[in-house]
């Protein structure tokens, strides 16, 4: 529970820290649109290079960003294989007959056990996983003994590989951009920025100030609620529950026994919080003064020019 780092502000003083949150939010939207305009691998690699240059200019540690990517590693792998399996255009690069039989099934089971045992010994991560995938490939392709239960063709096409690399790089850039935003912007500034940007929504009856307040209260309570979940889990573990083991049915039971008290506590909490807010004269919809003010500076103009320039470049490339 403790290693959730997505969206964590880290104090610092680079270029991105000096930008107004509104600028950052707008720039990210502009850059994402530009990114989706790109069509070829070369263009995307240029974009990746620009992203890295931006990180360097902002004096952001690339190691830190890469570390921040860890939680979405599974998503990246999934995206990668999804493209490889389902995109069947272009030249056929690999056509491998795979079969499931006593030997290959046994090897797969063995490999899986090995991989999980290693993971339990904290030898997790990318390398063991890739080796595991390699073992799966070898077992299915080359091991055969006795009768074949079922067999299928494993095919990789040129375009499939190209697309999967393309999509994964694009996803990486998008996540890097949003990590830059959350890494360099205080939650208060972020919500303040959103509040101001969403102000025009008043015309369709959405009060951006209340919306921002809801978001900032949610942000404020995330650590408290995680803490609480931890405490409840500890309490239940002390009564013999084991969240890491057990059959599916047991697990479902345990999750329910975690969720029910959490909901009850959350309801009580929200009621008390509402009382506390009201007693401090909070009246929904009533105009409030704000302790934070946002002002655009010289840096913001620079950022605007850069992101607008990149968008213009992306559009131009597509038109030509």
């Amino acid at each position: 529970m403790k290693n959730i780092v997505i969206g964590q502000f880290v104090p610092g003083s680079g270029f991105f820290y000096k930008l107004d949150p509104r600028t950052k939010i707008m720039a990210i939207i502009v850059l994402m649109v530009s990114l989706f305009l790109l069509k070829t691998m070369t263009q995307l690699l240029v974009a990746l290079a620009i992203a890295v240059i931006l990180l360097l200019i902002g004096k952001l540690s690339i190691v830190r960003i890469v570390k921040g990517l860890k939680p979405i590693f599974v998503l990246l792998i999934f995206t990668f294989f999804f493209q490889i399996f389902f995109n069947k255009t272009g030249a056929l690069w690999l056509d491998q007959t795979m079969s499931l039989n006593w030997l290959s099934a046994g090897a797969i089971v063995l490999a899986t056990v090995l991989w999980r045992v290693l993971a339990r010994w904290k030898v997790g991560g990318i390398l063991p996983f890739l080796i595991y995938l390699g073992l799966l490939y070898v077992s299915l392709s080359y091991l055969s003994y006795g009768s074949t239960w079922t067999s299928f063709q494993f095919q990789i096409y040129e375009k499939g590989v190209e697309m999967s690399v393309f999509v994964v790089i694009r996803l990486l850039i998008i996540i890097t951009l949003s990590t830059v935003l959350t890494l360099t912007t205080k939650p208060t500034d972020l919500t303040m920025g959103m509040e101001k940007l969403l102000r025009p929504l008043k015309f369709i009856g959405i009060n951006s100030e209340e919306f921002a307040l809801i978001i900032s209260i949610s942000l404020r309570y995330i650590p408290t609620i995680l803490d609480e979940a931890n405490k409840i889990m500890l309490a239940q573990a002390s009564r013999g529950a084991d969240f890491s083991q057990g059959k599916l049915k047991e697990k479902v039971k345990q999750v329910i026994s975690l969720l029910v008290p959490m909901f009850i506590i959350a309801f009580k909490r929200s009621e008390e919080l509402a009382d506390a807010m009201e007693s401090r004269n909070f009246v929904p919809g009533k105009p409030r003064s704000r302790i934070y003010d946002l002002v655009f500076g010289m840096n913001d103009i620079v950022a605007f020019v850069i992101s607008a320039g990149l968008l213009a470049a992306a559009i131009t490339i597509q038109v030509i």
Partner: protein
Amino acid sequence: MSKLEINDLSFTYTGKRMILKNIQLQIQKGEWVAILGHNGSGKSTLAKCIVGLLEPQSGSVVVDDMVLSHKTAYEIRKKIGIVFQNPDNQFVGVTVRDDIAFGMENLGIPKDQMISSIDFYAEKVGVKEMLDKEPSTLSGGQKQRVAIAGILAMHTDVMVFDEATSMLDPYARNELMQYIQELHQEGMTILMITHDIEEALYADRIVVLKGGEVHLDASKEEALRQTERMTEAGLELPVSLRILNGVTNLDPSWKEYLWASTFDK
């Protein structure tokens, strides 16, 4: 000059069981009143009625000749602030600074004034170094002090504490009581809800609630001599006081002396 009057106030949540029955209280400016009572005696309900979070079925709350109603609640909450029991459930801001600002923002106080108020009151309750900290990094006592600063910044002159120290460790509890004593010395009217008699010893006056009724309302010295009345309300006096109350054949001047030294808070 805030005078708080509770006139013949009755309240029920369900319409069936009366939680507060004809409560009659007059609290003078600058007084420190402890409201004592067993669990479920209606203390929190009374506190919520006083700050207008609950609307009584009959009777009224009057602050400085202003009768509490939907129309006046906003004005009255500028005068009366409340600190609740759970430090975590009243911290609205993402940081300490935000949280102290929250009430002032609601009152529409200009930014510059807010900044200087925040500095002043954060200093006063000893959280000046923590202005940029997030609530999850603060202790319970620190959170309660932030809540106090946020209320002080609204310039209230009555403060209600609903078991505000009960979730704190003894050290943080003492520390908080020191701050409250300071506020009292500066003229703040204090209404301290508690079921801890030790805490009530700080007060000038003790009001005991039992089953939603005022069971006892007297000066601290008066109230603490009434061992029986206290026991009836499910409250147990500290051992020293019980012994003193029980001793009958002691020279009155000696007894006075011992009493006085017990109250020497």
